[in-house]
């Protein structure tokens, strides 16, 4: 067993850290307040290949695998969960195309995505369903060499950026769910205003309206009726990004707490002198360590998936655990800060608001547990 990082991994981690500290951290409060990530930031991250870390260079990727993706995302997420969320949701969509796309689809739709010139989306949720894929109502009607898509997709990350979106719809011909690669802003594609969400500001969330969107039949992702598999397997890879983003939040909360405990004084000595504060700091440190190694391991596993079902279980339990701990840790971090921790002037206030989001996305916490138990009991 080897827990050390290769030189390349260290350098990737440092590159992301340097970029995040120099360019993202100084405007992270602005991103939070304006709920918008400046284009230069996305461009800069694209130039460093941060939009295509895991994928083969054949498709424009950097070829560094998910293990390195995790290291970079932790650093980006530490500075701004909104920025990390853009990359995470993008990688969810791109990962599905990578896993299920034909050679032509990958060449056509991944190259610009890996360079960050396109930002990819993955559209499953609808106003009527989030956790239950069987309830999908978006329809795909076959007309010769095309499918005609109609429906509404809710809470879709990155829906307002140009690039491909993987859309899940029910084929009227056979009643089965299939996945399609749709080019955003094609004829019949429109979006809502961005949702004003509670945390992870900057990561844009919009509804998508599909009105008679004409999709070439060759844009079907995986064979007809495989939509559920694309969703489950794709989302397992997506969870690697959700965990890493959450891990960045954990790291930030830990650093902020230690810093504050050393700086804030009570009767001329830092509050770190109090055992009660030390216990909180120690708990945060313990949980960070657990979250870190679970997330790093998930990245490592994602690079060598043999059994998709087992991987789905590992992704579900890691995502659920790390996202739960993020809520716990940011709340401990606020306690270390006292009332100051509730003020916008302190980073932990934002970390705390951001923390609740992870549990609700890419499958709510309860659904993750159902996957874990289901796989382990052998019923799935």
């Amino acid at each position, binding site marked *: 067993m080897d827990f050390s990082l290769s*030189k*390349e991994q260290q*350098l990737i981690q440092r*590159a992301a850290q340097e970029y995040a500290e120099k360019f993202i951290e100084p405007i992270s409060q602005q991103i939070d307040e304006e709920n918008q990530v400046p284009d230069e930031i996305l461009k800069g991250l694209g130039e*460093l290949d941060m939009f295509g870390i895991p994928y083969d260079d054949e498709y424009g990727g950097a070829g*560094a695998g998910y293990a390195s993706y995790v290291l970079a995302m932790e650093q980006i997420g530490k500075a701004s969960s909104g920025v990390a969320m853009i990359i995470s949701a993008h990688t969810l969509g791109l990962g599905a195309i990578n896993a299920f796309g034909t050679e032509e689809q990958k060449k056509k739709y991944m190259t610009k995505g890996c360079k960050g010139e396109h930002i990819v989306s993955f559209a499953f949720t609808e106003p009527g369903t989030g956790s239950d894929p069987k309830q999908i109502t978006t329809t795909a009607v076959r007309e010769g060499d095309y499918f005609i898509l109609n429906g509404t997709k809710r809470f879709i990350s990155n829906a307002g950026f140009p690039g491909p979106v993987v859309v899940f719809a029910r084929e009227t011909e056979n009643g089965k769910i299939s996945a399609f690669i749709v080019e955003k802003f094609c004829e019949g594609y429109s979006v809502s205003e961005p949702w004003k969400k509670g945390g992870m500001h900057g990561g844009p969330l919009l509804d998508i309206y599909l009105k008679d969107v004409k999709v070439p039949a060759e844009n079907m992702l995986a064979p007809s009726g495989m939509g559920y598999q694309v969703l489950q397997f794709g989302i397992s890879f997506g969870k690697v990004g959700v965990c890493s983003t959450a891990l960045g939040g954990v790291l930030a909360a830990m650093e902020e707490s230690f810093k504050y405990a050393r700086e804030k004084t009570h009767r001329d000595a830092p509050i770190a002198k109090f055992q009660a504060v030390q216990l909180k700091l120690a708990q945060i440190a313990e949980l960070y360590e657990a979250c870190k190694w679970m997330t790093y391991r998930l990245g490592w596993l994602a690079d060598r998936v043999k059994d998709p079902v087992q991987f789905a279980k590992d992704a579900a339990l890691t995502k659920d655990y790390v996202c739960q701990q993020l809520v716990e840790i940011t709340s401990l971090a606020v306690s270390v800060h006292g009332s100051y921790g509730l003020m916008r002037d302190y980073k932990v206030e934002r970390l705390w608001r951001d923390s609740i989001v992870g549990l609700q996305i890419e499958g709510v916490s309860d659904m993750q547990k159902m996957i874990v138990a289901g796989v382990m009991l052998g019923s799935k």
Partner: protein
Amino acid sequence: MNIVVAMKQIPDLQQIRIRNRQPLFDDVPLTLGTIDKNALEAAVVLKEADESIKVTVLSAGNEEVEDTIKEALAAGADEAFLILDDALEGADSAAIAAVLAAAIKQMDGVDLILFGEGSGDNYSGQVGSRVAELLNLPQVGYVSSMEIKGGQAVVTRTLEDCDEVMEIALPGIISVMAGLNEPRIPSVTQILKAGKKPKEVLELDEVDVDIKKLAFTETISNLAPESNRKKIVVKSVDELLQGLRSENLIGR
């Protein structure tokens, strides 16, 4: 045109912890000198403007340099020339300069050799000048900007109270200052390509150098001077101003 950039392996200073006023080096990742990175960036900028330029990074040190040097190759160096020997670990500026000078003699057609003004750890600031002496080459230091024009380098030296513009014949040696540029952050692709770039690795006995002893000087400790804080507590801004005035720290 061949540019050689000499870079020193140092511990990542941001990750060193201090215990009992002694630095702890265990598990501290290795990196390259901060000003050396400015020197490399300067070379890579020249190369981007002129494709005929080749940038070789030169380093002498222990076996770990072979891994550490990937950082320079990721940041734009074309190839590496390394003299690796664990015996070089505690070598002083004189010995390192002798090794580097001998290595440069073994390289083909070197036109410009760049150094950082001082290393990131000890900052003796001697190596560039010593190599110039050993190779009998012209040298300028404290360079804050430079360009190549008609076969020579035109540089600006930033001194305490003036900027001096100089021409230097090539081959020559330039030591640069930190403010010269902002070293780039390497992309993930560049990082992964770094390990595949050409590398020439020599052992100490493969360079033509005769050093009697690797270190005639030894750094015993390297600490910030102890400062005594006055720990004066003030109750108002007025009192603070008064205090600062009485110490002559602000004007009256």
